[in-house]
């Protein structure tokens, strides 16, 4: 699956030669399913993230009760510890020719952005970034636990 990179603007240009004022970021739209409920969101493809992370509000949209879900924490870039709870659900990525649906563990927490991290996500894909051509690629591996 080949996706276009999405341009993002920097709040202030970097003090580099040429003063870049933006960059392209790998976003991908996905559908999360839990039972008969779905939530659609834009994932930031983040190889530095250990897991797939979704906002707490997405769990409410999916009618997921996290009160007894396994708990843990993730560490944000700023160093703060973010409490999360884990749950299994089905994710779907779709291109014009390929549909990937797989069951995986995700972390729900007080975050604002959907993050497609390694465990349960990118570990099942070949991911390559091509900023020069403003695109990135996600190729599902045979190990993807499709449903």
């Amino acid at each position, binding site marked *: *699956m*080949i*996706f*276009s*990179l*999405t*341009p*993002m*603007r*920097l*709040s202030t240009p*970097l003090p580099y030669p040429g003063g870049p004022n*933006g*960059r392209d*970021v790998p*976003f*991908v*739209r*996905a559908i999360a399913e839990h039972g008969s409920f779905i*939530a*659609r*969101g*834009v994932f*930031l493809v*983040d190889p*530095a*993230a*250990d*897991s797939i*992370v979704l*906002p707490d*509000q*997405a769990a409410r*949209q999916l009618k997921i009760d996290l009160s007894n879900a396994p*708990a*843990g*924490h*993730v*560490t*944000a*870039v*700023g160093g*703060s*510890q*973010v409490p*999360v709870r*884990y749950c299994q659900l089905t994710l779907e990525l*779709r*291109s*014009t020719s390929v549909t990937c649906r797989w069951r995986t*563990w995700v*972390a729900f927490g*007080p*975050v*604002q*952005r*959907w*993050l497609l*991290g390694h*465990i349960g996500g990118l570990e099942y894909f070949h991911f390559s970034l091509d900023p020069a051509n403003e695109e990135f690629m996600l190729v599902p591996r045979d190990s993807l636990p499709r449903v």
Partner: protein
Amino acid sequence: MTDSVEFIRNMRTRHLDACDRYAGKNIAWSEDGTQVLAAAEDLSDLYAEMKRLGIEDFVIDFSPTMMESPTANGQPNAPVGGENKP
């Protein structure tokens, strides 16, 4: 239903404008990525607004206030390890 490739292709042409208009806010894109349906600082408020509008098919996104890195603003939106696995 619009596939992810087409959604991103549509969204990316409008993304810079959305970043400028809705910096720091959660955004609800239309299912095909061609328009922003609503925006709110709090994600719960955004979901409430979508319910008020009677719209069920929307895609949640977030426009950060600073973009040195989409995860570098001190907000808890970037796990970088130290996780407890289930």
